[in-house]
Structures are given as structure tokens and as C-alpha cells.
């Protein structure tokens, strides 16, 4: 394994009962890479993500983070140094925004002053006003909550950030703005990011590299441009052509307009 590898899956299988959710999946993510995992619902995307920070353990094969087999790592320590943005955000409703953001630092034993400073810093980073710190999650809009979710994932300075459909519940404008903001953070903080999405367009626009899952099998792994050129798998071709078809329709529509 190369020194620059952040995460590696080596023949990873996960079964719930008889049914394999992931079947012999192997790939590696380099440090600083932004990987999107794309696939329809039930293809094993979330399971794949949960295996990285040991919210779940594989039935077979090995998952490595920073070269170490995750089974040799304390799951609590691993999770505290890995950022996680949950599907549906998962903010703690009884914590303020600042408390939500600073939860992992708190678990790591940072003092109150340092946590407050960190929360302010992150609010600025995700472009929320400082005053948001004292509010409760239910007082925020969906987009604001998602920004807080990202801020919470980044609070303890992780090298790896895992995101489970982070922007899917948002309106198109917010989604685009947040996606671009996150992409900028990914670059400036030198993160390794794994984002799950069922939206190929989102993956194409944000990620350096895309993995496509279908029924627990990895059917494609490559840079966006490479995948666009591939023509061997009908499912993949259909998946890649959808954004292109949308773009084409849009262009036709625009050219006909006065």
C-alpha cells in the first residue's frame, strides 16, 4: 500500500444474514482525494461508509484507514478523528448549534473556552453568522442545519470526512452553494472526503473520482471524464447519460427561447 493511501478496501464483504450487501469490494482512496460513491438505493453505499469508521464491521476482507486494519483501532478513537455528516443531518435537538458543533472536541476533553472559539471558527468556515451558535437546530432552515452538520464533522480537525447524502434534502440553489462551499473547504483544509450520493450530476460536479455500486458490487471506479467515456456496461451508460441528456434538453430549450 502506498504511503499516500488514506483508506483502502481489500475484498470487503458485508452480509446481513444470507444476503450480501457488499460483495468483495476493493479500492483505495488517496490522501486529499474527493471520492463520490454513487448508486441506486439499496446498492450498499451507506454500508460502505459505515465500515470506514466502524459503525459496522465487515463480514469478510479488510478495511484500512491510514494503513491500519480498522479492527485493530479503538472504534471510539477512530470515530472521533473521522468527520461524519449524516443523512438527515442528525443534529442533537437538545444541544445548541455551538454545542452540536463542539461535541467531538468536548468528548476529546477540550476546555469550554477552546470549544467556544472552535465553534465560532467553524460557523465562519461554513459561512453562518456567529449568532447562530446559541440557537437550537429546530430554529434553523434545512440548509443552515446542513452547514452545521458539516461544521460538526470538521470540528475536531479530522483528516477524513465521510458524508452520507449530505445535500440531497436541500433545494437546488442551496445544494449547489453548499456543494461548492464544501469543495472549497476540502481543498483548503487538505481533507480526504468520501461522499455518498444517488445523484450522478452532483458526483460529476464535486468529486475527483467516482465509484459506482450496484447490488453490492462495484461496477465502476474512475475519474468523472473516464466514466463518461466508458461504454461497456449498459447500466453505467444509462447512469452517465442522464446528466448529459438533461444538459442537452436544457440547451435545446434555451436555444429555442427568444
Amino acid at each position, binding site marked *: 500500500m502506498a504511503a499516500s493511501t488514506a483508506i483502502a478496501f481489500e475484498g470487503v464483504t458485508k452480509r446481513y444474514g444470507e444476503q450480501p450487501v457488499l460483495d468483495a469490494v476493493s479500492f483505495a482512496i488517496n490522501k486529499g482525494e474527493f471520492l463520490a460513491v454513487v448508486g441506486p438505493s439499496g446498492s450498499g453505499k451507506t454500508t460502505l461508509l459505515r465500515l470506514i*469508521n466502524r*459503525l459496522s464491521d465487515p463480514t469478510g476482507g479488510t478495511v484500512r484507514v491510514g494503513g491500519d486494519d480498522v479492527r485493530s483501532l479503538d472504534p*471510539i*478513537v477512530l*470515530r*472521533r478523528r473521522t468527520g*461524519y455528516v*449524516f*443523512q*438527515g*443531518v*442528525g*443534529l*442533537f*435537538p*437538545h444541544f445548541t448549534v455551538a454545542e452540536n458543533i463542539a*461535541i*467531538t472536541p468536548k*468528548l*476529546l476533553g477540550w476546555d469550554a473556552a477552546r470549544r467556544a472559539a472552535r465553534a465560532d471558527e467553524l460557523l465562519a468556515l461554513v459561512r453562518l453568522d456567529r449568532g447562530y451558535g446559541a440557537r437550537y437546530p429546530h430554529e434553523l432552515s434545512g440548509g443552515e442545519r446542513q452547514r452545521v452538520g458539516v461544521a*460538526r464533522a470538521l470540528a*475536531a480537525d479530522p483528516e477524513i470526512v465521510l458524508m452520507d447524502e449530505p445535500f440531497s434534502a436541500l433545494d437546488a440553489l442551496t445544494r449547489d452553494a453548499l456543494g461548492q462551499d464544501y469543495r472549497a473547504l476540502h481543498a483548503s483544509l487538505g481533507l480526504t472526503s468520501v461522499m455518498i450520493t444517488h445523484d450522478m450530476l452532483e458526483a460529476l460536479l464535486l468529486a475527483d473520482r467516482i465509484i459506482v455500486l450496484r447490488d453490492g458490487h462495484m461496477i465502476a471506479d474512475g475519474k468523472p471524464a473516464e466514466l463518461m467515456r466508458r461504454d461497456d456496461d449498459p447500466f453505467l451508460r444509462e447512469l452517465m447519460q442522464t446528466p448529459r441528456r438533461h444538459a442537452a434538453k436544457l440547451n435545446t430549450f434555451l436555444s429555442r427561447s427568444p
Partner: protein
Amino acid sequence: MNDPRIADALARLPDYLGSHVRVSLVALALGLAVSIPLAFVCVRRPTLRAVALALTSIVQTIPGLALLALFYPVLLAAAALSERAFGIGFPALGLLPSVLALALYSMLPVLRNTITGLMGIDPAVREAALGVGMTPRQSLRMVEWPLALPVIMAGIRTAAVWVIGTATLATPIGQTSLGNYIFTGLQTQNWVFVIAGCIAAAVLALAVDQLLALIERGVTRRSRARVAVGAVGVLLIAALAVLPNVGRGKAGYVIGAKPFAEQYILAALIEQRLNARGLNASRREGLGSAVVFEALAAGDIDVYVEYTGTIWTNFMKRSDVKPRAEVLEEVARWLKATHGITLAGGLGFENAYALAVTGARAQALSLKSVGDLARHAGELTIAGDYEFFGRPEWQALRQAYGLAFRAQRTMQPEFMYPAVAAGEVDVISAYTSDGRVAQFRLRVLDDDRHAIPPYDAVLLVSPKRSEDAALIEALRPLTNALTIETMRDANRRAQTETPEAIARALSERIGR
């Protein structure tokens, strides 16, 4: 407002309210200490959860009075066992059985709400707790517990109201509570007491419920002020629990009384006598018939008035009938030999079971004896108290006279007399010393075939006090001091006067 019964009720409030708060609070604390951890243990274990909920639900279906009463024999056996095994006994009467029964009673709402609260947490939030790096314990403490707390608090409030209400039923097993007002009031037809007991219990329950609600809102809205005010309120109520101890010396002699007027008067009389001689005495009133005897044998109480016929039939299981003096002598011998209890003397009157009809009915059917009654029984309805139809005396009467009534009904004694006077029933099981026999102009029918044994009122002294010369000496003037007429009159006055006032009047008549 000048009713002396109101002043009397108020004078007893510190003792009754304080004792009530004490037993409720200890029971609730114990119930919470068991239910909440139990809920956490079984929330992720479906089988255990089902078993725990089913068991607590079953407990809930047992009537409060029965549950409380059941704990006395259980604890008595446990105390005897522990005495034998470790040489350490404990009192089986009063606080302990009440606390255990009430704690058990409080478990269902707390257990159910805690489980519901914990299970109702959004799985995404629980997943997030693990994902940000909480240990399962941290997740429980920082996320699951606070999110479930409003539901848990609602369960605690329900439990508190139930426990405070049910604690009124702790009186018959020897725990002073606001139920003392209700039990005493019902037996002596002192409605001021009954109402005082109900209102006091309701106000206490409402106050605790509202204070807990305040704490609950404070917790959900993170208002420290609300939590603080609620907590101070609860603490102030908890402070009432020490009221009964204020200005009271060490517990001296305890006088027991069964739940009816005659017993209250005689217990007050004995208490006054002992206190007059400087023997510090207090009363445990409203004890069940079987409970009071076992309590005396175990030394939980020191003195009470029993009736020879009750000992003869209930405890000695005798079905034969002997003359008064022989029964008295045999009973005294048996008590000493089997329980170490001393029979310190008879009071001079009998309170026997007897069948009674209205004077008018007696005349119309020319009834003088139970034998006369038997001929008409087929057309008549009989009413008895809760015990009567289960007692050997009833079997004996039926067999001796071949009694077969058209119908039989069970009633609270207070309602039996008006019922027979109004013609709702024709015959009742009366007590010979009851003041209402004269008041309602009833005719007590002779037991000419001697089916019912004599029921002499006798003073019983616990084994541990049997060598207590000062006590025996203080009780001596009561021997043969009360005639049946005196006692009937005293019992009749219990409807308008307090047992203490009647006891004082009796005491003056008896002299020193």
C-alpha cells in the same frame, strides 16, 4: 366552623400528613431507583422488556389494599427467617411493608414511560451520537436520557399521584397516613375526618404533581429557575416528613386498635391511662383483625383489646362452645403457652356477634330467639359485615338452627343498621355492644342453643411486655370496669364526639 371535630382533625394533621409524605416519598424513591435502571437494562432486550412490563402490569391489577395487606405476612415470615438465620429481626408492620408495596405499585408508569421515552428517540440521533465518537454510556447520558426525560418525568408524575393516593390504604397495616382520617372517620361516622383525609391526600397529590410538572417544563426548556423552584417545592414537602418527630420523645408503648369505634375509644382510654402514669404511649389504629394479633405476638405493638370468641374460633380453631368463664380461662392459658401473650384481664363487657331485627319486626313475627327466626328465614334477607359470612360463627348458627335465608348481602357495618331500620334487609349481624342497637331500636335475638361463643373484651399484652409491672399495674383499674350499657353508650356517642373525649369521660367514671 366551631365543630370540635375540625379542631381535632387539624391537630392530627402534622402527624398524619408527615407520616403520609414520609411513606410516599420513600416508596417513590425506591420505586424510581429500581424502575429506571431496570428500564435501561431491558430497553434493548425485547424478551426481558416484555417480562418486566407484564409483571409490573400484573402488580397494578392487584387492588391497592390487598397488595399492602399481602406484604405483612410476607415480611413477618421473612423477619422470622432472618431472626433465625442471622439473629436480626425487623418490624413487619408499618413503614417497611407499606414502602415495599407502594414502591412496587409505582413501578409500572415509570418503567413503561422510561422504556417508551428511550425507544421513541430518533434512530438517526442515536446513530449520530455513536458517529461523533460517543461511547454507549456517553450516548445514554448526554443524548438518550435527556431526550427521553420529558416522557420519563410524565411517568414519575403518574407514579407520584398513584403512590400518594394509595398510601391512604397503608393505615390497616400499621402505617400512619392520611388514611387514618378516612378509616377512623368511616368507622365512627365522622364525616369531617373522611373529607379531611380525602382533601389532604388530593391536595398533596396535586401539589407534588404540579411541582414535578414545573421541573419537567424546566428540564425541557432548559430553565434553571423553573427546575430550582420545583425542586425547592418538592424539598419543602419532603421536609414535612420529619414533622411527626418534632416534639416527640422515644417511642414507648404502642397500643393497637382494629378499625371500629369501640377499639378507637378503648385504645384512647389505654393511652390516656398510660400517659397519666408517665408511660409514654402512642396508638396504631385501624389495624386489620389478623394483622393486629400477629403484630402483638411479634412485639410490633404492646397492648390491644381483643375478644375471647375471636381468639377461640379464629386462632384456636375451636368450634365447640363453652361457658364464659371457661372460655376465658382456656384462652388465657392458650395465649401464654403458644404465643407468650399475657391476658391482663377482662374489661367487663361482651361484644359478641348476634342476629338483630327491628323491634317492630320482632313483634310482628313474635321473634325472641334465633330459633324463632329460623321458621321465617326463607322469606327474609340477611346482611352481614365483610367478615361475618366467612366466620365459623355463621356456620355454627346455620347448623344449630337450620337457617336458610332468602338472600344474603355484605355491607359496611355503618350502612347495615340504617338498612335494617329502613327495611331494605330484614336481619343483620349486629354486635352486642354496638350503640346503634339501642339507637335504631333493634331487638337482639337470643342464642338459646349457644351456637356463638362468648366474646369478652380482654386486654392482651405482648410477650416482651409480659413482665412489665408498671404496664400491668396501669392496666389493672380497667379490669371489669365497663358494663355493656356503658360501652354501648360510649359507642353511640362516637358518632358525634372524638374517641379521646369519650375516653376521658369513661376514665373519670372508672377513677384511678
